[in-house]
């Protein structure tokens, strides 16, 4: 088995998408193989980090949109309308 097949199986286990037979085989292997169990834990962490990364990139895109709306001349009336709300603050 190549390592990416194993990664795929770990994913199926984490997301609960394996069919019953494969899921049982995988769980049995996990009990017998601490290294596999360990990989499952780190792969969960990897999904978490990927989620944070994706969110961070999205926030950068939103920041760029904000910059555009508050600096570019074609959006000046929108920007002024908002800024007026916070004048004297």
């Amino acid at each position, binding site marked *: 088995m190549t390592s990416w*097949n194993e990664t795929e199986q770990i*994913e199926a286990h984490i997301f609960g998408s394996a069919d019953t037979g494969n899921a049982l085989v995988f769980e049995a292997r996990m009990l017998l193989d601490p290294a596999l169990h360990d*990989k499952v834990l*780190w792969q969960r962490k990897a999904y978490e*980090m990927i989620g944070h*990364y*994706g*969110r961070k990139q999205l926030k950068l895109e*939103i920041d760029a949109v904000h910059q555009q709306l508050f600096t570019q001349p074609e959006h000046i009336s929108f920007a002024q309308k908002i800024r007026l709300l*916070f004048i004297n603050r």
Partner: protein
Amino acid sequence: MRYILHIVIKRQFMPGINNPNNLIANREAFFIDLYKNAFPAVAKYISRMGGSFDEARDVFHDALVIYYEKTVSALPMPDNSIAYLVGTAKNLWIKRYRKTEKNIPLDNIDFTLGEDENMPSSSRIMRFLETAGKKCMELLAGFYYEQLPLTEIADRFGYSGVRSATVQKYKCLEKVRETIKEKALTYDDFME
């Protein structure tokens, strides 16, 4: 099913989504539209409550993230996106910034975005992944965060087809998993 729903939703909000080169440009147009329609109400409310421009911007950005994540997930969509955004931003502001009579510290927020990002070792690992593993992280975020179908991933990242994109996805996932493990073992505070 999830992907089909995702594409339907995305098409509804972002026409032209099929062309991967247009994806970011379309998302930009999508956010500009939401900004123009929802931000004035959010800003007006926060200003009236004594909040600042920066506070309004921060909660609105988080509300946009929450809304976007809802659009790409299989969760039911709110009927009125503008009302949903304005309501989310107002709630976030109340939870974070509104001064209570007792001056309770505002760390009891039940909806926090990315609390793990604040962990020092977690952000060190993130910085490492962002630089050394950028291409993999982009591919993986495209698949797991943006929930793009593999055909779009293949187009965007230049793979010959779904199969090679799939193999690459798992190889990247394995690489990221091993990197996190290796780095985490050198940073004591990573695991609880």
